């Protein structure tokens, strides 16, 4: 298995609060890695560190073996290959739906507007949002925004997409649509790292599940290992509500 991103001994504090303690973590090509755990366990911070939106205090992150914290790779170049989907969508408010999908291709990948538009339409179709291409991004519902945000990330042809609680800000009826899109992407072999509270989704699509607690990865393994045979007491406790349903 070919590792795309490797995280070694990662540490991050906000003031006195140690959010991440000595994290080791790998994202392999073609795999879906989900990160579960209670709020405040450091899941989102880990994902944000991987995309350098937070800068770790210690440890290293490598992308195809290149250390991205040591200046071996430009942050912008690295980020263009690692997509990110946010909890709050963060669509560009001054851009239409299709412009949201085009801007990165034009500004970062230096594609022509026509090429970018064609790619954007293709990805919007893939997430079922092509009929909204010309709409202002501020007029969409949450679920629609998140599907556009996924299309925007896909347009960059990233090697991996990081999803930071992509359905947490959605009402229950919208969650399904977004998860369906993500399941589709997983089945197409897209490499993904997903922080989520959607346990059924995590169980269904994950190749690797990481359970985080108090800044460390307490347990990781295959979907069956974590969901059906968790070893740690804390993991069992966390999953008890889900498993008893």
């Amino acid at each position, binding site marked *: 298995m070919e590792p795309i991103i490797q995280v070694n001994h990662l540490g991050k504090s906000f003031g006195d609060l140690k959010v991440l303690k000595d994290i080791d973590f790998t994202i392999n090509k073609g795999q879906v890695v989900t990160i579960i755990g209670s709020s405040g366990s450091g899941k989102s911070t880990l994902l944000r560190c991987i995309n350098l*939106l937070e*800068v770790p205090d210690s440890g290293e992150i490598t992308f195809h073996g290149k250390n991205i914290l040591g*200046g071996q790779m430009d942050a912008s170049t690295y980020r263009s290959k690692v997509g*990110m989907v946010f909890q709050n969508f963060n669509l560009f408010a*001054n851009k239409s739906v299709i412009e949201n999908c085009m801007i990165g291709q034009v500004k*970062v990948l230096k594609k022509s507007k026509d090429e970018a538009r064609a790619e954007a339409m293709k990805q919007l179709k893939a997430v079922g949002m092509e009929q909204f291409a010309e*709409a*202002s991004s501020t007029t969409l519902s949450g679920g629609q925004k998140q599907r556009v*945000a996924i299309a925007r990330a896909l347009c960059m042809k990233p090697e991996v997409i990081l999803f930071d609680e992509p359905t947490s800000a959605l009402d229950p009826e919208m969650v399904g649509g977004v998860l369906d899109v993500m399941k589709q992407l997983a089945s197409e072999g897209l490499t993904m790292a997903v922080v989520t509270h959607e346990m059924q989704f995590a169980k269904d699509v994950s190749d690797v599940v990481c359970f985080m607690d108090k800044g460390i990865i307490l347990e990781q393994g295959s979907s069956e290992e974590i969901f059906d045979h968790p070893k740690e007491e804390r993991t069992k406790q966390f999953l008890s509500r889900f498993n008893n349903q």
Partner: protein
Amino acid sequence: MSIDFHYAWKQLITNWPLFWYGIKMTIAFALVGTLVGLALGLVIGAIRCLPLDPLDKPVTRFFKQLGRLITSFYVWVFRGTPMMVQAVFLYYLLKPVFHWSTMVAGFVIISINTAAYMAEIIRSGIQSVDVGQTEAAKAIGMTNFQTMMSIIFPQAIKNTFPSLGNQLIVNIKDSCMLNAISVVELFFQAQSVAGSNMRYIEVYFDTAILYLILTTLATLLLNFTEKKINKTTRATIKDFSA
């Protein structure tokens, strides 16, 4: 206290060419001052908001901090002293260097003065844009500069448009302070007219009315533009729901 409205009207008509020239110059100073001030203010405001990234090289960090220091100093000085004082001081200080006319000096001074205010408005505008917008732009690999130009500035300008537009109205009025270096504009012309026939009250009444007309027209123009900016968003909603 007495004012002869008939005489005031007569003065306005007789001296219209002088007033008209003054009006045109005042509009020129207000427009140039506001637009150049906005352009400079965007740069200064952006520098004042430069985020210090822990990933920055020491050199980058040094220049960012130097830039912040210089721009803070700029805003402090130009917002903290009267434009009239800036005008006389800079005009005479730089005359041996640039050999400039009072008119050129006037355009420069009103622009750099306005820039200090614009910078503060832009800074508040930049801060009003959700941090998620910057993160999303970074996440697709856009550089800080690209993010500023394509994502942050358009939203910052839209959010602060009423305050930015207010500077145009301020400049229509405050350009008269350039009178301190004998720049020819509406107030300068009014003084000439008033002095030549010693009817101060009537002529300055005319002048006040003319300024009021100019600021009213500017207000109408700004309101119209603001509506148009907001309408573009609303039109899209309509198009898409139809």
